[in-house]
């Protein structure tokens, strides 16, 4: 599982400009504007709904040209963190800077991919029109997009393999296609920093690979991408940095040193099942896989795959041994996962 991605990324100046959507002459992506300031610096951020804290005193630094996953259980405040960074939910306390300045002054530097389910896909419009929405920030109030914007949007659709769908009604798209359209829209924003809320949720395997490739292209271009991610199994493979969140920030930093069983255990409390991802197929004996699933942290630093267990099948009280609540581990895992007997297969297409 150790691969090049886990090495600290070197900001890539040489590749600047290649694959930039639209090919416009904007400010340089790397090293411009904010000087040496971090893409995102969060200080003491607290967000509360009424009197219930959703985020509690979060400090987070996102280094330049990193691919960071935000990971944590349901209700950990992952989406809220992204929305608070973008000023979409008010902060009760704390401070967020984007390349050294408040977000309101840096809107043009930040691209946002909301959750796919947060918008109305029955809205009467087509794919190209949605992608052009990514350009509205540059166009500004009252002005209408023109031919140049259409061309830029087409180029971005091309990059996600959706050019043939430009005139398609958005209500006729599959989940994976919807997500690609959202990514094309983000590319149209052409920003130094991207915040994406669960771009992998409910997409097919092909789209998932396409998104990963796109994320890596963005990073190679010197851009920074922060992604709310749900799948513990793929996180170390896709990302080079991680922030582990459960209302409080449990840990953040490079994947290799942060994504440890210890930190995961602290983040998920009793809500995690560990699956041993053995390089050899497990023995077919029925007690083989069953015995392994549900063990509490059976491994320290060894090659392992993790899966978050859905809330529905988790005992509400913390500290309960997960194994005890899972008489039938295979059936209680998320539906997308294969049986524990074949752990390496991932999401089938």
């Amino acid at each position, binding site marked *: 599982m150790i691969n090049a991605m886990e090495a600290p990324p070197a900001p890539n100046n040489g590749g600047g400009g290649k694959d930039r959507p639209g090919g416009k002459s904007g400010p340089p992506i790397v090293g411009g504007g904010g000087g040496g300031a971090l893409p995102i610096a969060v200080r003491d951020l607290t967000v509360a*709904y009424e009197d219930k804290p959703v985020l509690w005193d979060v400090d987070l630094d996102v280094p330049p040209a990193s691919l960071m996953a935000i990971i944590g259980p349901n209700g950990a405040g992952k989406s809220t963190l992204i*929305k608070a960074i*973008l*000023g*979409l939910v008010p902060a009760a306390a704390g401070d967020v800077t984007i390349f050294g300045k408040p977000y*309101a002054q840096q*809107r043009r530097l*930040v691209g*946002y991919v*909301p959750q796919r389910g*947060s*918008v*109305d896909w029955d*809205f*009467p*419009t*087509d794919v190209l*029109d*949605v992608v052009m*929405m990514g350009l*509205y*920030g540059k*166009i500004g*109030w*009252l*002005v*209408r*997009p023109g031919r140049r914007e259409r061309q830029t949007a087409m180029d971005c659709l091309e990059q996600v393999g959706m050019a043939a769908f430009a005139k398609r*009604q958005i*209500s006729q798209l599959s989940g994976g296609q919807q997500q690609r359209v959202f990514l094309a*829209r983000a590319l149209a924003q052409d920003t130094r920093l991207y915040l994406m809320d669960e771009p992998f949720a409910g997409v097919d395997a092909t789209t998932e690979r396409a998104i990963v490739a796109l994320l890596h292209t963005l990073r190679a271009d010197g851009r920074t991408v922060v992604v709310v991610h749900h799948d513990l199994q793929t996180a170390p493979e896709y990302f080079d940095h991680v922030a582990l969140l459960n209302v409080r920030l449990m840990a953040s930093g490079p994947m290799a040193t942060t994504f440890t069983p210890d930190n995961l255990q602290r983040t998920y409390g009793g809500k995690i099942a560990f699956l041993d991802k053995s390089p050899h197929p497990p023995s077919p004996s029925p007690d083989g896989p069953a015995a392994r699933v549900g063990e509490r942290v059976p491994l320290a630093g060894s090659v392992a795959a993790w899966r978050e267990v859905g809330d529905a099948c988790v005992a509400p009280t913390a500290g309960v041994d997960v194994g005890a609540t899972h008489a039938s581990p295979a059936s209680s895992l998320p539906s997308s996962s294969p049986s524990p007997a074949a752990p390496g297969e991932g999401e089938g297409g």
Partner: protein
Amino acid sequence: MNSIQVIALVAVLAATSCALAGVFLVLRRMAMMADAISHAILPGIVAGYVLARGPNVFVGFLGAAGAGLLTVFLVETLVRSRRVKEDAAIGVVFPALFALGVFVISKYLPNVHIDAEHVLMGDITFTPFDPLLLGGRDYGPQALWALGSLTLINALFLTLFYKELKLSTFDAGLAAALGFAPAALHYALMGVVAVTTVGALSAVGAILVVALLIVPPATASLLTRRLPPLIALSLAVGVAGALSGFYLATLWDVSISGMIATMLGVLFGVTFLFAPRQGLVAQAVRRSRQRQQFATEMLLVHLATHEGTDAEATESDPAHLHKELHWQPQAIRDTIDRASDEGMLEERGGALHLTDRGRDRAGEVAER
């Protein structure tokens, strides 16, 4: 202009102003808000009456528009509290405001006559005789001025903020992140709806206002899934309902507002049934065609499966299909006829034989 023409023009302008204001209301799934605003403006009118110490068009107008926005604000506040859902919030707010208006009238303004039928149905018949008087000069019917300006204002609002309205309706999160102030835009839109409702209410009444706001966009969205044609069709449906309703009302001597609202309902119903793609009839035809096509494909695949095997003779006997595929004899006959019309199979010596074309087709079907 004679009074017939004035009334027709008032109806058309009410239709255009409302259709323009209603498009984004319907797209935002806030159609019920029109109903709420149209009722909740009563306390605003009353407040205007009290403030101006008598009936005053402008103060009453401002009071009513303010009450409309207050309705929106109260509903949103309740929804944001997460303790009341939007439909219930609307149902809580507008009867309370309406009742407040009724209470104030009956308690403190016993001499003010407010007629229920007037509020519901309006008095479009009298609009030609209610002139706009400024400095003693008669500038023509007041309703024409009011609804004409509203149509212009709404058209301007939609044209100027088309891109912003579209983005904030489709994806409020991105709109906010890009700095397009979707909340402000939302209140601006609600303000437009409130002002339009107030302006149209005195001419055409509460029921017709709601009908004119909601029915044209709802009908148009059965006909198109693109925004510019949707706006154009909303206008067309509104005007068609206004003119046909007005014509039939004079023909049969019935309430003009009532007839326009009825015609809008008829237009919607007809569209719902006969819309080219999304209509019930078109859907039924499409489903039936798909069923027929699938039956043909099933037959072809069945024949292809057994082609060249020992069982071919029995399997390709039409009589056998009844037992095998559990189809009714008539359905088998129809499917065979259709397939041979399309050159997919031939019937020779009481057995069915695939043509090359039919074999290719069966292969394609089995592929997918």
